[in-house]
């Protein structure tokens, strides 16, 4: 379990990092290393050069804009988990972070690293797709951005090109008064990869009618998916409407089959977890005050 030899470079700027990556097909980015280092140890990955971006100041920090929260790529998962801005403005991310790995891996693992790794069952990509986040990239030509659902292509495959690097994730902030989130996953053990994960966020008006809803599934297909349940807007998210909307949205769901779970099991669990997540989100929103400061 020893990695093959490689060169290690720690560039001083993001521009220099992109240049190093663009000029070398065998170069890979390392940040927290919580997925890459096991891959190196098992020699499933054998890059000739590692470009360490962890200490680049451009990639650090959590910033609130008018309608979004921008999370720097090298923000540690543990740091995001404790962050008051994320807790208040991107509650879905705060909710899922305790499910990402273990405390020691969250102390090193980064938000951007989980996005770039694009594991279909990972929680952070699920949140990005469900909320319609934007992935901000650093390229040799300058910054670029793309919606999360275009960024994720397949299992561990993204639309990122050699010479580019995830620099931040822009999570949209819902401005409604009453927002609630729900999250459930099924895995063999806590912190293991989810066979199925479902995340929901809803906004309610003062009479508990749904103003907006987002629902996403991880672990089912080859990447996280957002389900279209917009038919629930205007309803009270009652069990019957929710079941109809979830069934309609998941009717042609392409589920993966593997050693751990069959496709039909995944589809069945997906429907159940979607309904539970929606109900949890509704209940979470309903206990919030209808008026006054958020």
């Amino acid at each position, binding site marked *: *379990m020893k990695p093959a030899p490689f060169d290690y470079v720690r560039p001083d700027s993001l521009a220099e990092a992109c240049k190093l990556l663009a000029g070398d097909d065998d170069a890979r980015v390392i940040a927290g290393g919580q997925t890459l*280092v096991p891959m190196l140890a098992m020699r499933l990955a054998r890059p000739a050069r*590692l470009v*360490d971006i962890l200490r680049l100041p451009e990639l650090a920090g959590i910033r609130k804009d008018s309608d979004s929260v921008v999370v720097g790529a090298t923000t540690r998962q543990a740091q995001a988990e404790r962050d008051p801005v994320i807790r208040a403005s991107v509650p879905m991310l705060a909710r899922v972070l305790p499910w990402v790995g273990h405390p*020691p*891996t969250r102390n090193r693992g980064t938000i951007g690293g989980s996005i770039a790794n694009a594991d279909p069952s990972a929680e952070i990509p699920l949140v990005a797709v469900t909320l319609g986040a934007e992935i901000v990239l650093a390229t040799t030509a300058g910054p670029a951005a793309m919606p999360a659902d275009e960024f994720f292509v397949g299992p561990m495959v993204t639309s990122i090109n050699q010479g580019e690097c995830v620099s931040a994730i822009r999570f949209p902030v819902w401005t409604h008064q009453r927002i609630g989130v729900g999250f459930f996953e099924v895995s063999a053990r*806590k*912190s293991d990869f989810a066979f199925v994960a479902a995340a929901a966020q809803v906004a309610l008006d003062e009479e508990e009618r749904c103003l907006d809803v987002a629902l996403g599934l991880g672990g089912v297909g080859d990447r996280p998916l957002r389900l279209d349940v917009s038919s629930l807007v205007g309803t009270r998210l009652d069990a019957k409407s929710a079941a109809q909307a979830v069934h309609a949205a998941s009717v042609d769901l392409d589920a993966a089959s593997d050693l751990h779970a069959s496709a039909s099991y995944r589809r069945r669990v997906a429907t159940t977890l979607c309904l539970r997540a929606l109900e949890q989100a509704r209940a979470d929103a309903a206990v919030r005050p209808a008026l006054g400061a958020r």
Partner: protein
Amino acid sequence: MMVDLRINGTVRSAELEPRKTLLDALREDFLLNGTHAGCEHGVCGACTVLLDGEPVRSCLLFAVQADGYEITTIEGLAPAPGELSVIQDAFCETHGLQCGYCTPGMILAAHALLQQTVTPTREEIVEAISANICRCTGYGQIVEAVQFAADRLRIANTPRALLSPGGSK
């Protein structure tokens, strides 16, 4: 490449290949064999060390990445040679170990927790050691050891006048 690391309060230097993990550097180059090599791919937690007081897996970090951090290994916890820290002592008293392979990692994870709180709930203790695998104890006595250490630290840090008679609080 030349690497300078701050380990248990002392700056140590070595000429290391970039592919050498912090775990291997600690054991082979700095002869700190208390950090145990288990799975070597981030699953078991035997290699846990503290970076700036936070538990991390030293097998998932290359030594060349570890400069600038305050690294604490199990050797750095005892107050003096031949002595034990309160947590180490609690593990002995409550039989929180059998073979001892996971113990340094468990103790460092517990140490990090008890730096944050000396009144941890059972859930907090379980979460704190959730990344460390023990194949002997069934975890019961490890949880008990951490609880026992927390009680002792709490009593030790409470002014005598505030302790109820018998010191049970």
